């Protein structure tokens, strides 16, 4: 498609800036609108979809607590921490195990993610105050479960 267009310059929207910033840092993130009921996810980037195995239509509109990522190894304590962090408005770091999308019914074994989840609450100063939350997973733990529960940890 040709680069030259018409005269209108796209305004730098608040959300556009956030997305560009996180994409630039190669983060896997989602953005949720806290003013919508159940704090629905309004955007997730390609990195997030690749990492979790869920497609964008799967993720959109779901509550930002990301229940769809929970699995057998997700601790209830961590889930509660996440829920609490989302209620507050300061940056929080939570460690939680998430599971990739189950493709062949092999949820019991295979890959799990253990990562640091950073919560950031962002406030816009414009009249249309959208409260947006974003988090990014930093590193990944491969947990292979055999009889002896051996586990290997490595950085992504």
């Amino acid at each position, binding site marked *: 498609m040709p680069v030259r267009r018409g005269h209108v310059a796209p305004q730098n929207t608040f959300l556009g800036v956030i997305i560009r910033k996180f994409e630039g840092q190669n983060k896997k993130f989602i953005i949720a609108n806290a003013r919508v009921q159940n704090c629905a996810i*309004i955007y997730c980037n390609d990195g997030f979809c690749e990492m979790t195995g869920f497609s964008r239509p799967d993720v959109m509109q779901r509550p930002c607590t990301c229940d769809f990522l929970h699995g057998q190894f997700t601790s209830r304590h961590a889930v509660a921490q996440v829920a609490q962090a989302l209620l507050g408005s300061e940056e929080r770091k939570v460690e939680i195990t998430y599971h990739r999308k189950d493709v062949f019914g092999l949820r019991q074994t295979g890959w799990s993610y253990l990562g640091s989840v950073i919560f950031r609450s962002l406030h816009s100063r414009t009249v249309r105050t959208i409260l947006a939350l974003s988090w990014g997973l930093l590193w990944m733990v491969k947990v292979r479960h055999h009889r002896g529960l051996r586990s290997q940890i490595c950085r992504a």
Partner: protein
Amino acid sequence: MKDLKEFTRVHCLPQQLKQRMLEYYQTTWSVNHGIDTNELLHDFPDELRADIAMHLHKDILQLPVFTGASRGCLRSLSLNIKTSFCVPGEYLIRQGDALQSNYYVCSGSLEVLKDSMVLAILGKGDLIGSDLPGTEQVIKTNADVKALTYCDLQYISLRGLREVLYLYPEYGSVYAADINKNLTYNLREGSQSEDGPDEVAGAPN
């Protein structure tokens, strides 16, 4: 361009409307250099038209929802697809309108707004529109869709889609089952209040 300016002068169009017209005209020109695709294709035989359409719209046709379609079905679908674009700040769809087409975003970004609340941000590779509830009812939209940047779009008319699905009923059931997995946002009035987020492959509640 001169004709356009004459037109706006003769009909005393308000300044804002005139600006939008000129902007759209300018962008149209830079996109297709004054060549009307539909007019050009009109003269060609069906086979050739389908081949050209399959190439022009390969972006939307590579969506997973279309993988179950037979060759003939895909070609019929491709004849119902058109390209379009959106200018920053323009509304693609308004809340409460009757939905005419499903749109596929080839580039650019848009936002889905309802009562000034952002419900979704759409970008490259997203499909927005509605599923087909089965009956011939009119589909009313439940939100606005506004372009944030210049967007290239490919859209398939719902009427054309219904016609093709009628001709290929075996694909019709596949489409009805898969469409919700491909729609980034469902604009159909009432679709949000129906059975809420259902179980996603194995995720325990």
